[in-house]
């Protein structure tokens, strides 16, 4: 059992938790993830590490409610426990392991979409601590879904915020910001790191390819084991099949087959929807899901 030391609700669908897990906190690096199980019968949820405090032995995760398991997690509070917390899993970001001298020579642009802001944050913070100021684009559907703005501003170079509906920052997609920075402002970037919904990473890569900016993406496929044992998270990178859990989660975005990855994420869509309705509506669920037959 792992104690929830702190819970911060950022908006109605996104919350953060500091979990006491000394073994994970001691070794985790930006780019890695953990697997959380809420209760004794819970499923294994992979979540990217958002921050960590080695002295306190805590790891911070950011979660967006999606299915029944994440709603269950949201219903827990400070002082409660999650049943399992395994990690750190996956490879650390290349930025952390590459020669720091080489990294310093690069002008780096981060592109974060929605919850993807959370895993971008520790990377930008790590660079800041090593004297590197990276530019960051944060995109969200609407103002309420922009997260970690102050924290990010404190550790990055330029911060560009854009919302789909124009309720905050500029209006439009992250790809339009990339194009404007390169074409209108004449900015030059040697490396882009894009983390967010798979569809956003796909279009981000299409844009950066145009400007020849090598781009790293962090993939979040369906997972079970998280340790290389099952291959549920496999994806095609170049002409090779890779396991996101041990070969990734970060890959060369120019080589990732995004269409296949997006398809594979849809595998259990109806099952997950049903489980969510059951959890949230319980006995008041009268077949509104259209699947269970309860409305017939």
């Amino acid at each position: 059992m792992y104690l929830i030391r702190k819970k911060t609700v950022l908006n109605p669908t996104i919350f953060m938790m500091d979990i006491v897990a000394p073994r994970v906190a001691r070794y985790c690096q930006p780019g890695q993830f953990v697997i959380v199980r809420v209760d004794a019968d819970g499923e294994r949820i992979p979540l990217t590490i958002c921050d960590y405090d080695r002295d306190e032995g805590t790891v911070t995760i950011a979660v967006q409610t999606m299915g029944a398991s994440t709603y269950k997690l949201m219903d827990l509070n400070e002082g409660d426990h999650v049943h399992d917390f395994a990690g750190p899993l996956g490879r650390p970001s290349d930025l952390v392991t590459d020669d720091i001298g080489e990294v310093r020579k690069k002008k780096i642009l981060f592109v974060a979409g929605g919850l993807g802001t959370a895993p971008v944050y520790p990377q930008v913070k790590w660079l800041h601590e090593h004297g590197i100021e990276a530019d960051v684009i944060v995109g969200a559907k609407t103002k309420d879904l922009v997260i970690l703005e102050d924290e990010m501003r404190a550790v990055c170079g330029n911060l560009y915020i854009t919302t789909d509906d124009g309720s905050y920052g500029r209006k439009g997609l992250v790809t339009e910001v990339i194009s404007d920075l390169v074409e209108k402002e004449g900015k030059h970037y040697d490396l882009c790191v894009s983390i967010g919904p798979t569809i956003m990473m796909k279009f981000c890569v299409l844009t950066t390819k145009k400007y020849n900016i090598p781009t790293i993406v962090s993939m979040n496929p369906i997972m079970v084991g998280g340790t290389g044992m099952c291959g549920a998270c496999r994806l095609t990178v170049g002409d090779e099949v890779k396991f996101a859990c041990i070969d990734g989660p970060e890959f060369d975005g120019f080589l990732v087959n995004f269409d296949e990855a997006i398809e594979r994420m849809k595998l259990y869509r109806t099952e997950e929807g049903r489980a969510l309705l059951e959890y949230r509506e319980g006995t008041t669920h009268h077949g509104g899901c259209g699947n269970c037959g309860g409305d017939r």
Partner: protein
Amino acid sequence: MADGMIRVPVTEQDAQLRAKNFDEVCLGYTEDEAVDEAKRCLNCKNPMCVSGCPVRINIPEFIHAVSERDFDKAYEIISRSSSLPAVCGRVCPQETQCESKCIRGIKGDAIAIGKLERFVADWARTNGIKPHTDNAPNGHKIAVIGSGPSGLTCAGDLARMGYDVTIFEALHEAGGVLVYGIPEFRLPKDSVVKAEIDNVRSLGVKIETNVVIGKSVTIDELMDEEGFEAVFIGSGAGLPMFMKIPGENAKGVFSANEYLTRTNLMKAYREDSATPVFRAKKVAVVGGGNVAMDAARMALRLGAEVTIVYRRSEEEFPARAEEVHHAKEEGVKFELLTNPVEILENEDHFVRALRCVRMELGQPDESGRRRPVAIEGSEFEMEMDAVIMALGTSPNPMIASTTEGLDITKRKCIAADENGKTSREGVFAGGDAVTGAATVILAMGAGKTAAKAIDEYIRNKG
């Protein structure tokens, strides 16, 4: 049995009935049946059966105790050599080990050693009898990586010798392949596996779950910073293999490890499970080993029509005869001498069909089995909506790559001698991590041998 030639039959769930539930197939002997079967044992002076047992259980002695209805004593004898008798009695390939050496087997049926072992273990559990240890703690700390059959055996044996043992497990539950791989209907999880792991705990063994060695902590740190004097690596062979054929990433293609982990460890067969499993109507399972049989019979119970696709003939099946027999009885179909060449997708990228080619057997290959060769122009399609790949597994490189000076073999297994000694001082290894995918009992044998070697190592270190 008057003439003693024929084995007392064991009751099994009816094939039609069990194909629709997840309860155990084999119901085991009753007390009277066990005693009758035990009485057939000739109690050989030079018991060949013991030499066929990787953990060297004193078989004639425990069977003799059963024949005298002294089940308590029988359990005491078995538990001296084995930490997991209820597991072994169910999943060991006895027909090629202890029972294959039985003198009774020359003219009639070999003694049902496995079924008797299972009976004794089940009897002990139902009657609340625990294995006992009288060795005083010796204060030496040993770490065991992995809580599968080799790790549990090594830990149990070391604890009996007085060592302070901690097992580190990457998953959230202890048991390794016993909990994620072998299905409920062959090896009940709560009543059998959990109970035997609790027995190992009752010997004083601590189990820390959610620790991924090489990620959460390294072997070097366990030894240098956490005070462990020796380490046993029993991390298994966890990486699933795929065929590398077109369409393998379509929705509806799974490794057997994934399919079985979802259904066994995560209990996806239950309505109330938080983990989903793909409910297919027509499933192809590719492979001919025990894991293929397990996946096929699981898919069957989840309501699918199931076909095993295997490139050799039935004679070459690596699976136990009993498993193949059970699968057939339950209605699993077999397409032998058949090899998949492509998985075809529908417009939504779900599996639509499996394109296969017929094979014939040519000259024997390095495994001694005749090599299957494709027959030209024999390609055909089978309609399927899921394909499960049960092609075998290879060891996870995570530990070897994070442990300084730990040699691996060409096949990416950890290099260890016959006593489990690796290239690193104080580091021992055994089970599938060393041999590649094999059986539960061979892993247990390796865990046992390594426990002895670790004891000698600690004693000699002074």
